[in-house]
């Protein structure tokens, strides 16, 4: 673990890929030119076995991003101390260049619900999320990135705009933001917002990583177009264009291709990263922007 022992706390400004068990062997045999790999934290919280063996080998070759999906930062209930301990153990072991989580909740008294659920944006929920991000950063001893959600409904009690909410969490906790461009498209279409102005209003100087993924499409109860954040296909053309627009504001940023369902062969996945890398290379460096850690 010589390389992971003194990692810098920054991912390269390149395209990365989600690491999938079906690709472990191919990656180690072919050592493809990929900017970084990202794993879901919870998939590496087992005691031992092949997942850790492979992740150690791959983390020695590539920069690593750990992306949590189960901390439930947007829950009203307190964070799960046991889960925070598991996260700290994982982060201490692999020393990833980035740790990120979601503005969502997933744990309830009935158990873990295995979905990223939405929360209203109010003064009360903002205070709770700020506490939870503070607590997480203290436990991990490092700043985290918080990801904008994709949502299918709104709360009438919301009094704070989503971007203002995220910006407030970032400024109050010092956390960075993860800009999921696919989530922007999904939420914008679902809530009749303009995705370009969402990007234009986003506090881009706090963004430490971008996510891209493919959405699915259906219609809602009134016959309106409804996008589903499905992660089961290539990045859609309109999201590619929105990504290009984001880069025009931010300059190149670490950019992850998420493809979690119907995972294709590695070559197909890698082609997505190569396309994103070309766009990152073409993006003008954005001088004078202070980047969140």
């Amino acid at each position, binding site marked *: 673990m010589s390389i992971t022992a003194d990692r810098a706390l920054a991912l390269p400004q390149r395209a990365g890929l989600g690491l999938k*068990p*079906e690709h*472990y*062997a191919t990656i180690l045999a072919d050592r493809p030119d990929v900017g970084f790999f990202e794993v*879901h934290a*919870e*998939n590496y919280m087992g005691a031992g076995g*092949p*997942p850790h063996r*492979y992740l150690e080998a791959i983390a020695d070759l590539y920069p690593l991003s750990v*992306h949590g*999906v*189960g901390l439930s930062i947007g829950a009203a209930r307190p964070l799960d101390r046991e889960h925070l301990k598991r996260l700290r153990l994982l982060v201490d072991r692999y020393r990833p260049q980035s740790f990120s989580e*979601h503005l969502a909740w997933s744990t309830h008294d009935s158990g873990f619900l*295995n*979905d*990223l659920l939405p929360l209203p944006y109010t003064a009360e929920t903002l205070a709770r999320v700020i506490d939870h991000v503070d607590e997480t950063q203290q436990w991990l001893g490092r700043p985290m990135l918080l990801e904008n959600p*994709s949502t*299918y409904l709104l709360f009438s009690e919301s009094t704070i705009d989503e971007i203002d909410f995220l910006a407030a969490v970032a400024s109050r906790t010092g956390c960075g933001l993860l800009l999921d461009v696919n989530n922007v498209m999904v939420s914008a279409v679902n809530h009749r917002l303009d995705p370009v102005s969402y990007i234009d209003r986003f506090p881009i100087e706090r963004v430490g990583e971008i996510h891209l*993924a493919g959405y*699915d*499409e*259906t219609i809602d109860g009134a016959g309106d177009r409804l996008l*589903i*954040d*499905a*992660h*089961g296909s290539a990045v859609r053309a309109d999201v590619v264009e929105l990504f290009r627009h984001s880069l025009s504001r931010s300059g190149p940023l670490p950019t992850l291709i*998420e493809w*979690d*369902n119907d995972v294709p062969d590695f070559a197909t996945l890698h082609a997505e990263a190569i396309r994103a890398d070309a766009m990152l290379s073409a993006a003008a460096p954005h001088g004078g922007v202070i980047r969140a850690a």
Partner: protein
Amino acid sequence: MNRSTLTLALAGSLASAIASTAFAAPLAPEKMVGNEKCYGIALKGQNDCAAGPGTTCAGTSTMDYQGNAWKAVPAGTCVSMNVNGHKGMLAPVKS
């Protein structure tokens, strides 16, 4: 069998079994498994692709929620699987 007879029998049985493996030099850990071909019946294994459920941060457009109405009957390989005269669907008659 009394305890000392048992101890003698076990020690003798173990000694002869170890003697029959003694030709083998100390085994590297990765070689150890599968070396004892004679013991038990080794079954074809799964690979890492079968790692089991992982997490997701994605939703699904597969609409599958139908409440708890129960209609289905087993209709997979248990129906067709032939186990030496038994159909896989049926529990064997206990004697």
